[in-house]
């Protein structure tokens, strides 16, 4: 529904940007003036005029300082041009000779309009002008400072590769290529942004990924029409299925190994320039709770961790709600000894359990948010000191009961144990809804809330794949890698719910699994 709304807006005529439709003239000085005028003579614009072939031809190169690799320009353009001799006199021939022989930059193309020139310069390319020609050479000389490849801070693992994506798209595609050395690996290029053009790459393994799904991803990407996409979150929000859902329908990661593993399962990876976060589609509920580390440890440990994670998911959604329901409606359900001690600790607390829980969870969220904003050492201190001090003080002040502090602390820890920040946040949103339901209807409210969450999940799709798969629609084969993680040798097929073109993972084993 949202998409159709945007599509309507798209139909509005794209306003013509007159400034950019100017042609390139034959006069060098005029051409250079045009560029200067268009960009309003920025101080980082470098226009180097020079002559070649014993001062018989006037030329110039234009680039923006800092975006380019100046050593590269010197070695592959300037030096070659200066040393070239016996060049033809005819302008056209000369231009061709320079294009094909003299310049040794690997990526080189012709530019016809001022718009080409401007976009090229702004994305770190170098433009070569020859006096008397209405064409230019655009050479890829991208360079400049980049962050080095580091371990991603948001997804650190005990075991696994230590490299992470960085802000440079080319480096990121290389990282993927190193993981998947397959001739069927496909990178499809797109440009997004009206004002600021950014490169976007759709990566998938042809022959594995379902072609219908790849087409759907491309179709959605082509509808993107925004000024600028500073981060892949813009892309995610534009192409996701339902903006009303609390659940993330697109996964993101900073880890090349996770992205590569997803691609080998038949998923599609979307990479945007200038952000280390790549998107993985489609996402399912099960895959949101997976971590790449699950596959690196032995299966028994990995399975245990996964079960623990599902338990953490349960706690992070239901625990405060259960506390509220049990304490305010169903005291009879709690064993009598415990019920007495809870009643004793709640003695003197002036608020009903719902308000009590709301105060504590709100405090917890505040601490979390504050800890994020502060530098790491201070942030940790805030987390620990804040949690301990406020919890302790709140109990002694009689605002909350000690059991409540335990409940909220356990709940927060459980939500941090989840591998994806996105799903942890969505659980926290649900938790507030369930707390409210529990405050009104007790256990009955919680179960109705649970049913409603389930209704929502089964109706949700991510790029045509049901969000609830492989639970429902049920794919028994995929249960091998869901809550459990069977030994690697027993996982013979790619996930069924992905409907890949090449389901088999190994040649060994029985052929009976083929007959489905």
């Amino acid at each position, binding site marked *: 529904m949202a998409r159709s709304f945007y599509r309507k807006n798209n139909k509005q005529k794209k306003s013509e940007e007159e400034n950019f439709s100017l042609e390139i003239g034959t006069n060098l000085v005029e051409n250079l003036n045009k560029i200067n005028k268009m960009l309003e003579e920025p101080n980082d614009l470098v226009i180097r005029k020079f002559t070649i072939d014993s001062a018989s031809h006037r030329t110039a190169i234009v680039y923006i300082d800092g975006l380019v690799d100046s050593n590269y320009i010197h070695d592959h353009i300037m030096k070659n041009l200066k040393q070239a001799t016996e060049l033809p006199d005819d302008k056209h021939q000369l231009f061709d000779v320079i294009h094909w022989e003299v310049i040794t930059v690997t990526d080189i193309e012709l530019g016809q309009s001022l718009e080409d020139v401007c976009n090229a310069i702004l994305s770190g390319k170098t433009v070569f002008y020859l006096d008397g020609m209405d064409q230019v050479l655009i050479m890829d000389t991208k360079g400049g400072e980049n962050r080095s490849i580091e371990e991603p801070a948001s997804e650190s693992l005990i075991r696994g590769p230590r490299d992470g994506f960085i802000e440079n798209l080319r480096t990121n595609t290389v990282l993927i290529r190193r993981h998947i050395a397959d001739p069927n690996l496909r990178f499809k290029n797109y440009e997004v942004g009206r004002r600021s053009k950014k490169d976007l790459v759709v990566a998938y393994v042809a022959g594995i990924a379902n072609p219908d799904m790849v087409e759907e991803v491309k179709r959605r990407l082509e509808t993107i029409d925004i000024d600028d996409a500073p981060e892949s979150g813009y892309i995610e929000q534009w192409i996701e299925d339902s903006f009303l859902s609390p659940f993330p329908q697109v996964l993101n990661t900073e880890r090349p190994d996770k992205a590569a593993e997803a691609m080998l399962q038949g998923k599609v990876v979307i990479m945007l320039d200038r952000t280390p976060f790549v998107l993985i589609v489609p996402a399912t509920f099960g895959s949101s709770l997976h971590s790449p580390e699950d596959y690196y440890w032995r299966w028994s440990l990995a399975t245990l961790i996964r079960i623990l994670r599902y338990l953490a998911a349960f706690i992070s959604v239901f625990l405060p709600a259960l506390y509220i329901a049990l304490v305010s409606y169903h005291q009879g359900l*709690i*064993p009598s000894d415990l019920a007495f001690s809870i009643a004793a600790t709640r003695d003197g607390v002036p608020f009903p359990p719902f308000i009590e829980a709301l105060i504590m969870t709100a405090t917890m969220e505040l601490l979390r948010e504050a800890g994020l904003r502060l530098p790491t050492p201070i942030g940790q201190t805030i987390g620990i000191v804040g949690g301990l001090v406020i919890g302790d003080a709140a109990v002694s002040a009689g605002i909350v009961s000690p059991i409540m502090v335990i409940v909220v602390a356990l709940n927060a820890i459980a939500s941090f144990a989840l591998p994806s920040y996105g799903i942890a946040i969505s659980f926290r949103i649900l938790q507030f809804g369930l707390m409210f339901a529990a405050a009104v209807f007790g256990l*009955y409210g919680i179960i109705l809330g649970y049913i409603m969450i389930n*209704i929502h999940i089964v*109706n949700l799709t991510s790029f045509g794949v049901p969000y609830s798969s492989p*639970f*429902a629609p049920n794919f028994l084969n995929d249960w091998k890698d869901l809550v459990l993680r069977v030994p690697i040798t027993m996982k013979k097929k790619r996930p069924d719910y992905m409907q890949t073109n090449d389901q088999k993972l190994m040649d060994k084993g029985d052929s009976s699994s083929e007959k489905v």
Partner: protein
Amino acid sequence: MKRFKYADERISEKDILVAIPSSVIGVGILSLPREVASVTKFADGWVPLLIGGCIVIFMTWAIAKFASGFRHQTFLTYASKIVTKPVAIVLTILFAASSIVITAYQVRKISNIAQQYLFDQTPIEIVALTFLLVVVYAVSGSRAGLFRINIMFLPIILLIAFSVIIFNLGWFEIKKLMPVFQTPPTDYVKALNTSTISYLGFSILWFHLALVGQPKKAPKMAALGMCIPVGLYIIIFLVCIAVFGNAVTSNLLYPTIELAKVVEIPGGFFERFESIFFVIWIMAIFNTTTMAMDISVIALNSIFKNTMKLKIIFMLAPVVYLIGMLPQDIVTVDLLGAIMGNTIVILNIFVLLLLTVIAKIRGVKRNE
């Protein structure tokens, strides 16, 4: 052959296998042991339960066999071909009406039980309303989604049912089951009626089979699915008798929930297991109710083709609520349930016979 096509909203035969027990298991089983035990002696109730089960399994198979012959056609379409359009519309309306009453019955019943086991002060009107709203939310979603919900909930429901049975093993007294076959034959017939009514839920086959992509194996799957509630009911009945004895069982209002009351969780984690049991059982009742309501929505939608599905649902919901709130006390509610059960059994048998015979006589071709 692929079971699941990318972005496909059809359902598979295996979904039918799950949907049948999901729409059968509901409030019925909670009071069934009492109803059966009160007309039979000792543990003899399993005989009518088994015979009734066999009849129902056969009927399920027959309906599925008949309906799957008309691939991807709605009930109204193929019924119109066989017995002219006006008659088909009347039959569809009968199905819709009976499903509406069943929905209302379930909604009312769950509110009564919730009042008894969860809260004593909240008025049943509020409990019923919230439950109905959640049902409406489910029905207004995609139809494939309903079947997915069934798949998600059924394992949990069976798990809690079997945990009740297993935790009760300690209270078993085999001598309460003896002696066997003491009931006079006329009482078996009475009990047979009760047991057949409790297996209702196969009406979905008339309407939902049109959604199945490859309905060839559907009859087998539907019959297999029906075996699950039959087996479960017999086991629960026997456990009730073995734990409480016939006399106590026939006097308990909801013997199955009382069975959960006996349970003591080792480790003393919870007390009053019956509340937990009933809370989980709400999922089972929810599945039954949504499937019943969806039947009426499909039926009405096939008659009023140009009306939006949501409009139908929003018009149905108040009707369901009013019908559910109409009976004054629990006796009237149970009476309503019994009448509806008999009506639906007769309706199903009647429609099956009518359509089969006339289709034979007029030679209506299948799979067109």
